[in-house]
């Protein structure tokens, strides 16, 4: 792998991200599965980076899951999106930041479609007024939340308490970055680094001391694929795709996986457990799985947040070996304690892949 | 004549005796082995055949004609025929007359095996008698005949072209020993009898030899050494015989018996095959017959070498040659011993290909195209049973001109026919047989037979000679007339159902291997062509016709070599500059069509073009 070659591509795929004042919208899936991630994101950006992030309870789903499952027509999805943009406008913002990759992809797709087909934009404008009586507006900048962390990765590195470095050996951790398919595969120019060698997560890893792993199936989908997971008979297919990725990354002995999509960490994490149960195979060291994180979780760890405050206890693959490697202190007893030390109960211990 | 040596024995007979005892024992064991290895049905067949007067007559005729007089070689090459006949028949007569001598003059020595051979040494005529002179003359006469044959044989070895052979076989070591012994036997006999003639008396040859030699060498010292030499050479010959090509001398009569009994080889080394391969005299006539041999590199694939390697059990070589052969049958037609090397090669292929897996379960679903074609509804049509079943065959579907012509002929004569494989049928099975896959072929044949039987047709017309051969030989369709379209058209002409214009065009007819040598159909196509134009002669015709090169017989012959054969064949066809080349096989038509400068058409096309 010739690093200079990649750098050239990275320099070709850059985009403008405003410095401040963002309208932030959450992700349906992440709110339920990785709730702490969005909390940490807002905490970091607001309190550590001193940025203005606004969010409103009136924000709804973008309709992406229904759209990609062919449950709603495009116009419906577009009208929902137009409403989110209208809310942003209503609250006086023009920089739209979303937490979800599916949403990001759909927003990009919608904006591009409107650009190509102005008559469709006009129609949606009308529909928005008919249904919500809101004023149509388009964001000046559209960014994914990972773009924000990417933009401020070096500031985060300056405030870092821990690095993506094996504290014992001093060597950088080997990190697999997995980019959500809808981040840049549809519109390569809309993502940092383009579609072939996206830089958005790789940049964070580099800035925080880790080493990026380039494995053959790095481009492959996590296996979610919407319909492949939603329909139970198809789940074997979803599983097989995840399996393919792990088989491909195995020789590189990754220490961790970082993702920037709602579905990916979920499937890369949960399917490791299923593979270990059905195939008897694990991909991490000593019979463990490879811990999977969202980029906010990693940013949080680097900045010294308590692992259990980051919600790492809800991961299927135990994160403790990684915390040990990075030298992050944690109290094992607190792992399953919720608010006010309320016992959350312990998961039935899987036969492998977890701690 | 009276016995000269008391006891009728001399040690010099010993080498001969060793030889003769060895060879007789060997032959007996070999015979028992062949009979034992033969499938039971074949044994039964052989036994029954030996009781049938018709076959007995044919056996005697063939043994005389083929083994002694070599009439087949005579037919194609008189000088070569004479060479073979003089040695075989001459020697045979020497033995027969020798025995008569013993029986007449020294009946007390009857049954002593060496006695007739060394008769002149043991017996002398003190006073000339007419009877004695007659025998002296007869024996000398046949000896002379044999010697003349030996002389020609030596000439052939030195210059094969002198005897009309382009090539001759390369002998192996045992062949050489036996050959030189054979060459030496009769001159030595002449010398031995010559030196002895002063004592024993002799005829025109021995007596004059005596006169000539006595002057130079003196008699007494040479008599015994010459008899010793004669005996030793004979003994050596017999010892070398089983390992040499001359094994054909004792084997051929057995092969004739087996062949006439109608037995066919099922394995390249069992039963009749064993007799067949030892019947090959390695004469090399097949070398010139083989169409592949216009290229020197292919000579090693000739039948004679195939049989030689078969004898040596060299499986690799036999497989290689068997796979290369075009199976055109030219060598079989030319073989003086009628060794069916194609059948042997086919069974050699079977040893491998019959083991290969196949799955013909699809055959169950195959049905015949059942639509009856009646060109004119007012036409007089007999009962359904008189329907003609037209089976074009796989290859014919690649030559739509044949199908179109046949359809037009059927319509012209208002034939009520069923076009069996109009929408494609299954293969006839012959290509499988040619590849040695006889077991697989059986399934296909069975299915086709069922289809033909179910159609209820009493006549089947075939356009492909490959189908023709297998239909005739393997299909067992009693009550159904099997006709190739050449025969069918010829019948139509003879019956007056088809009226043709005689054109100004001249045609040459190419005999397809499978139709000519395969089915013995030579005259019908020629009659048909004569009815539509002038029939010109080809350089090689009928059973000497050269394969078109497209044969399905060869498994490994490459395209360049095939093309060479095609050119060769076309050259032989066009020596008289015919306007068109006519053939009767879709494969020949397509193969020639690709290479020929002269237009090539099928006989059906030629006929359809000239319908009145």
């Amino acid at each position: 792998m010739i690093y200079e070659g990649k750098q050239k591509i990275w320099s070709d795929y850059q985009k403008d991200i405003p410095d401040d004042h963002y309208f932030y919208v959450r992700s349906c899936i992440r709110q339920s599965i990785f709730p702490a991630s969005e909390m940490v994101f807002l905490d970091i950006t607001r309190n550590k980076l001193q940025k203005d992030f606004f969010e409103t309870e009136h924000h709804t789903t973008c309709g992406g899951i229904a759209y990609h499952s062919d449950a709603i027509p495009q116009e419906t999805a577009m009208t929902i999106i137009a409403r989110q943009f209208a809310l942003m406008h209503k609250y006086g913002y023009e920089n739209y930041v979303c937490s979800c990759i599916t949403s990001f992809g759909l927003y990009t797709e919608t904006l591009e479609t409107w650009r190509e087909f102005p008559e469709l934009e006009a129609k949606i404008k009308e529909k928005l007024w008919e249904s919500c009586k809101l004023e149509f507006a388009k964001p000046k900048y559209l960014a994914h939340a990972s773009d924000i962390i990417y933009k401020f990765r070096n500031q985060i590195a300056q405030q870092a308490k821990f690095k993506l470095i094996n504290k014992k050996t001093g060597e950088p951790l080997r990190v697999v970055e997995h980019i959500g398919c809808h981040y840049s595969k549809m519109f390569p120019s809309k993502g940092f680094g383009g579609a072939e060698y996206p830089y958005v997560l790789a940049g964070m890893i580099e800035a925080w001391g880790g080493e990026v792993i380039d494995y053959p199936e790095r481009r492959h989908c996590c296996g979610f694929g919407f319909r492949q997971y939603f329909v139970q008979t198809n789940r074997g297919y979803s599983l097989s795709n995840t399996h393919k990725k792990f088989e491909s990354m195995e020789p590189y002995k990754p220490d961790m996986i970082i993702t920037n999509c709602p579905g990916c960490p979920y499937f890369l994490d949960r399917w490791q457990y299923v593979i270990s149960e059905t195939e008897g195979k694990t991909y991490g060291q000593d019979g463990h799985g490879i811990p999977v994180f969202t980029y906010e979780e990693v940013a949080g760890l680097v900045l010294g947040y308590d692992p259990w405050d980051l919600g790492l206890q809800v991961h299927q693959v135990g994160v403790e070996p990684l915390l040990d490697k990075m030298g992050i202190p944690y109290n094992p007893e607190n792992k399953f304690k919720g608010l006010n030390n309320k016992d959350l109960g312990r998961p039935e211990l899987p036969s492998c892949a977890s701690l | 004549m009276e016995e000269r040596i008391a006891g009728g024995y001399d040690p010099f007979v010993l080498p001969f005796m060793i030889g003769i005892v060895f060879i007789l024992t060997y032959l007996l064991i070999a015979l028992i082995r062949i009979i034992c290895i033969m499938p039971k049905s074949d044994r039964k067949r052989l036994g029954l055949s030996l009781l049938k007067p018709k076959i007995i007559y044919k056996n005697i005729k063939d043994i005389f004609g083929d083994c002694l007089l070599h009439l087949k070689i005579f037919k194609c090459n008189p000088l070569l025929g004479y060479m073979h006949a003089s040695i075989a028949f001459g020697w045979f007569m020497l033995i027969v007359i020798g025995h008569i001598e013993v029986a007449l003059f020294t009946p007390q020595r009857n049954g002593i095996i060496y006695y007739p051979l060394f008769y002149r040494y043991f017996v002398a005529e003190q006073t000339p008698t007419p009877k004695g002179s007659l025998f002296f003359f007869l024996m000398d006469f046949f000896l002379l005949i044999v010697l003349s044959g030996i002389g020609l044989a030596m000439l052939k070895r030195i210059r094969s072209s002198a005897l009309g052979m382009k090539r001759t076989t390369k002998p192996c070591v045992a062949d050489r020993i036996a050959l030189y012994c054979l060459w030496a036997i009769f001159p030595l006999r002449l010398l031995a009898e010559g030196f002895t003639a002063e004592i024993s008396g002799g005829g025109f040859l021995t007596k004059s030899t005596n006169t000539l030699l006595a002057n130079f060498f003196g008699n007494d010292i040479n008599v015994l050494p010459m008899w010793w030499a004669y005996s030793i050479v004979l003994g050596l010959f017999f010892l070398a015989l089983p390992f040499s090509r001359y094994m054909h001398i004792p084997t051929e009569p057995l092969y004739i018996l087996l062949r006439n009994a109608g037995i066919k080889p099922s394995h390249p080394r069992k039963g009749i095959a064993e007799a067949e391969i030892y019947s090959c005299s390695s004469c090399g006539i097949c070398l010139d017959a083989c169409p592949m041999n216009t290229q020197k590199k292919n000579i090693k694939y000739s039948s004679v070498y195939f049989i030689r390697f078969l004898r040596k059990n060299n499986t690799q070589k036999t497989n290689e040659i068997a796979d290369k052969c075009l199976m055109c049958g030219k060598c079989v037609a030319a073989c003086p011993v009628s060794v069916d090397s194609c059948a042997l090669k086919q069974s050699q292929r079977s040893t491998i290909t019959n083991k290969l897996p196949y799955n013909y379960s699809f055959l169950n679903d195959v049905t015949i195209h059942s639509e009856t074609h009646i060109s004119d509804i007012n036409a007089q049509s007999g009962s359904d049973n008189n329907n003609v079943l037209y089976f074009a065959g796989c290859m014919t579907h690649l030559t739509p001109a044949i199908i179109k012509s046949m359809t037009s002929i059927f319509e012209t004569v208002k034939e009520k026919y069923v076009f069996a494989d109009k929408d494609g049928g299954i293969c006839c099975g012959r290509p499988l047989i040619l590849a040695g896959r006889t077991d697989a072929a059986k399934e296909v044949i069975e299915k086709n037979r069922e289809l033909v039987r179910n159609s209820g047709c009493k006549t089947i017309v075939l356009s492909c000679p490959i189908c023709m051969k297998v239909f005739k030989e393997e299909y067992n369709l009693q009550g159904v007339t099997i006709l190739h379209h050449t025969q069918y058209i010829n019948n139509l002409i003879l019956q007056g159902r088809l009226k043709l214009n005689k054109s100004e065009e001249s045609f040459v007819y190419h005999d397809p291997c499978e139709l000519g040598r395969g089915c013995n159909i030579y005259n019908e196509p020629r009659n048909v062509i004569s009815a539509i134009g002038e029939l010109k002669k080809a350089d090689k015709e009928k059973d000497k016709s050269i394969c078109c090169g497209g044969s399905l017989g060869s498994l490994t012959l490459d395209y360049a070599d095939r093309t060479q054969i095609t050119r060769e064949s076309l050259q032989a066809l066009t020596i008289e500059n015919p306007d068109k080349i006519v053939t009767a096989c879709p494969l020949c038509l397509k193969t020639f069509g690709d290479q020929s400068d002269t237009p090539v058409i099928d006989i059906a096309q030629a006929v359809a073009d000239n319908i009145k």
Partner: protein
Amino acid sequence: MTGFGYSLTPSSRINLDDKDKEKWNKLIDLEPDVLKCMACGSCTASCTAGIFTKTSLRSAILYLQNGQEKQAMEYVKSCLLCGKCFMVCPRAINTRHLLLSISKIYTLK
């Protein structure tokens, strides 16, 4: 082990890294013409058995090239050796010998 009601789906991908070259090389030795195929499909189009089955020399060669021996045999097992494919092959591939050779080599244990 826990059952989930679904499991890994087997891959349909051809992995040329895993191809058994030994048999393929043997086939080339026996009938080098196999290399000449340009996948025109003439053989399949005119195949006698092809009317009733999926017999296709073109496909068989392709599958063998890809190392999928079992599938390849499906395309030749019903061949009648009639030789039409030899007549129509634009590259004069000795198809009948190739078919026999395929059967010979790929059924050897």
